[in-house]
């Protein structure tokens, strides 16, 4: 296993670093992480971040299951995941160290707050002696400091109440980290001033702690061990990028589509982990024509969104696993009435309540088939926190242009993760031309279709001359009247299918990365993009004829899918489930034998495990062939 990458070890100079901060959930870890992310992005680095919340709301202090973590992968080259192995751990207490240690390769940096290793903390973490002093960490670069005490002193000096010290420790640590990363304090200070402008006392305490941390690092002569060259291709001009969490990117994508399509946006949801962030964040965007509605349950949420679509808006609803199951029946109504509706499902580990805070890709078959009758619809999947924006936008685009419901699959990992989003990405979004019944259509009938796309024409109240009545009963072709006619039913089932299949013609073709022909093609979808890409790149760079194709359009599949698959000797479908896409592709392409690689642990793939898995599928003697790549 020694030949596997440990992120930065094998590279000539350090170009990417994985930092992990961990402590009690009350320690302000996520806030410090967010500031650090902003500062890093500002400096022009690529960043991908991932929080790791405890399942409990407020777990007891110092407990193992109460550890809250924040991980940031920062790089001066492209990076794809929040990172497998930790280069720098900042541990606020013993439990934090205990939980993270297995992910820290020897030789890496551990920065620990001595004050978090008192006997009570040690006991809660299950340590019988203090690992900071008992030799446990001999093979690491250990830096300890009495951070709590130092923060208290710093506040005293700055004339701020020292009772704020405990809550300011995170800023002291942030100051140290900024020093280590050679990042400036300016941006962070500005952010703190803005954020706490109504509570100047807190702003002052935070800033004092921040500066003290920085100064302390300088004083104890910490080096700048984490200096990275700037990222070549990144724009550091503020205003040209932002940090996007997956939930934010979803909201922005929907809003961008709403602006482009010039139709009102109606968003309805019922809180459920991990999708709730979308609902919560949406609440900041109320406007004349943006409505956000917290419904009494998931069924009401989708039903109100269907009503909104009928009334001329983009109806959107979001949920997670069990809530998705509850929406099944109403989603069937949207299929039957052919209304433009978007459903975002932030998948989590199932079945049933499962592990609500953990990630998984196991709602795919539900998205495709979880309704009574033949009820086809469009299924998309985003693959990075930032491109949640693109696919949310595409979801609205396809819904409005094809007048049909669309399911967008994301997951716990995407929704909580964050990365840079470039303003330029927004410029690349395609136009949206809603398929609205124009006034020059004579004799409007609700199920008259565009002969090309088979989309029906959308008309809504109070349009004149286009009143119609639709519903869940089978309807007569064209007129939309209730019909029990056998042939009509057969025809309508086919039409609904063909309309969805036609979307194949308008979506981008499937792309392969790295080898586009050769021995092994790795197929993935959703949030595994980063890990698969990193693993494939590693093996490709080692000379293997390995390619990566990631599906963002799952139903219908891009029309070149089969063609791409046929270019490889072996194909493996990698998923965080028990083989759902594998099953779909296997049925779709009967001749081919598809392998699968699956993990159902509620956590993402690690780059290393994928490399190992793929390596087993590759013929050893094939390598090393030198590609014309830069490695």
């Amino acid at each position: 296993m020694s030949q596997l990458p440990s992120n930065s070890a094998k590279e000539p100079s350090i170009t990417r670093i994985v930092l992990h901060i961990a402590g009690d959930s009350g320690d302000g870890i996520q806030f410090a992480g967010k500031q650090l992310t902003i500062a890093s992005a500002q400096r022009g680095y690529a960043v991908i971040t991932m929080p790791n919340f405890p399942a409990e709301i407020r777990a007891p202090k110092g407990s193992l299951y109460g550890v809250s973590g924040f991980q940031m992968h920062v790089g001066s080259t492209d990076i794809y995941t929040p990172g497998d192995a930790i280069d720098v751990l900042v541990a606020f207490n013993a439990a934090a160290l205990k939980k993270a240690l297995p992910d820290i390769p020897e030789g890496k940096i551990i920065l620990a707050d001595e004050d978090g290793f008192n006997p009570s903390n040690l006991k809660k973490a299950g340590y019988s002696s203090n690992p900071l002093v008992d030799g446990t960490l001999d093979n690491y670069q250990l830096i300890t400091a009495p951070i709590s005490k130092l923060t208290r002193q710093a506040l005293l000096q700055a004339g701020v109440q020292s009772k704020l010290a405990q809550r300011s420790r995170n800023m002291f640590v942030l100051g140290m980290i900024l020093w280590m990363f050679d990042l400036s304090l300016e941006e962070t200070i500005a952010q703190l001033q803005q954020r706490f402008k109504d509570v100047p006392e807190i702003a002052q305490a935070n800033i004092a702690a921040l500066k003290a941390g920085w100064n302390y690092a300088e004083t104890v002569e910490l080096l700048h061990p984490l200096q990275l060259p700037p990222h070549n291709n990144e724009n550091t001009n503020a205003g040209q990028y932002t940090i996007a969490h997956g939930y934010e990117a979803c909201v922005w994508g929907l809003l961008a589509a709403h602006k482009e399509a010039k139709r009102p946006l109606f968003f309805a949801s019922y809180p459920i982990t991990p999708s709730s962030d979308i609902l919560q964040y949406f609440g900041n965007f109320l406007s004349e024509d943006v409505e956000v509605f917290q419904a009494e349950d998931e069924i009401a949420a989708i039903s109100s969104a269907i009503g909104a679509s009928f009334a001329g808006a983009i109806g959107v609803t979001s949920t997670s696993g069990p809530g998705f199951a509850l929406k099944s029946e109403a989603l069937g109504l949207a299929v039957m009435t052919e209304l433009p509706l978007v459903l975002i499902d932030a998948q989590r580990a199932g079945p049933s309540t499962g592990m609500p805070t953990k990630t998984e890709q196991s709602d795919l078959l539900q998205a495709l088939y979880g309704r009574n009758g033949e009820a086809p619809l469009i299924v998309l999947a985003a693959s990075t926190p930032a491109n949640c924006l693109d696919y949310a936008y595409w979801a609205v685009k396809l819904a409005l242009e094809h007048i049909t419901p669309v399911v967008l699959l994301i997951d716990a990992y995407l929704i909580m993760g964050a990365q840079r989003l470039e303003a330029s990405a927004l410029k690349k979004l395609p136009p949206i031309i809603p398929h609205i019944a124009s006034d020059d259509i004579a004799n409007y009938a609700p199920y008259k279709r565009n002969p090309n796309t088979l989309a029906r024409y959308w008309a809504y109240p109070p349009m004149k001359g286009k009143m119609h009545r639709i519903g869940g009963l089978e309807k007569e072709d064209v007129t939309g009247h209730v019909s029990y006619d056998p042939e009509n039913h057969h025809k309508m089932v086919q039409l609904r299918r063909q309309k969805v299949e036609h979307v194949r013609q308008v979506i981008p073709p499937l792309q392969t990365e790295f080898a586009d022909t050769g021995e092994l093609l790795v197929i993935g979808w959703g949030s595994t993009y980063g890990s698969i890409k990193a693993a494939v790149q590693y093996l490709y760079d080692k000379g293997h004829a390995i390619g990566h194709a990631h599906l963002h359009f799952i139903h219908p599949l891009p029309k070149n899918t089969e063609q791409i698959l046929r270019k490889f000797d072996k194909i493996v479908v990698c998923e965080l489930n028990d083989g759902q896409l594998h099953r779909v592709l296997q049925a779709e392409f009967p001749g081919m034998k598809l392998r699968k690689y699956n993990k159902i642990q509620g956590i993402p793939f690690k780059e290393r495990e994928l490399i190992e898995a793929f390596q087993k599928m590759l013929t050893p003697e094939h390598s090393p062939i030198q590609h014309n790549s830069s490695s």
Partner: protein
Amino acid sequence: MSRTVDYKAFLSDQDVRWCPGCDDYIILRAFARALAALGLPPERHVVVSGIGCASRLPYYVNTYGLHGIHGRAPAIATGVKMVNPDLYVWVITGDGDALAIGTNHFLHAIRRNIDINILLFNNEIYGLTKGQFSPTSRLDLKTRSSPQGNIQPPFHIGSLVLGADVSFYARVPGNDLNAMTQVFVEAARHKGTSVVEILQNCPVFNDGVFHPVTDKNTAVEHALWIEHGRPLIYGKDRKQGIVRDGCGLRPIHWESEQPPSEVVVHDEKVDNPAYAFALTQLSDPTVFGIIRRIRRPTYEERSRALKQKVAQSAVVHDFIRKTILQENL
């Protein structure tokens, strides 16, 4: 009531397919008349329904119509109304649709006081699925799913909606065209959720269950028509009336010419729902008319006010404003 528009203009060209003799025909006519009386262009009306015999109604009226799924019409209607508060949104539902599978949405719409008009066809039976007991069926009723008699005590619709602080609640007999027409118009004019409970005879599966209170001959003794500001008096001789009894109400009978002074005068606007609640607990006589009509902010009014009040959130930073919201900063 304006008579300028012929109510037939509000009927669609679809064959009406209820059973012969069903009250639904009368209700449909009353509804079309009410629409005509309101004097709005038909495309301003959206009629949303669930599933059931009653819920077939949208096909028969010449407006925008959405025949939804079982029990969800109030939720669907909420979406319609929020997108365009200028629309007149009607919910057509049955006792099964609103009070079995749809209890949630029905009561939550009422709680929010969203300005939709719910016409609840209460026939105390599941009609469309051919005669199983419903949550309003009486005890001991034999139905296809209670061959030995129903053992589930019924909901009092009125008490339930008052428990959710309904701002407009009326009850009408399904065979009284004029009364229904008028009440439907009042429901439409009311700002907030209006619930109109229609005692609808299902001649096929639950025939005659309301006859004592809807039949001309018997109703005079068993029905109490109420009107704002008028005393609660009924009976052929007008010698029966309603008085207080603790926090409840009870009927009394008198011999003298003048009614006793304790007879309660109807006030549809009492803020405390306790009075209207007490009215709904009366069963003999059964109360008809507008039981409660109060003004409280509607959901869409609160939403509009919130949007006006609220400054742009600090969470929305410049990047988003410029790129997504397309604001000129």
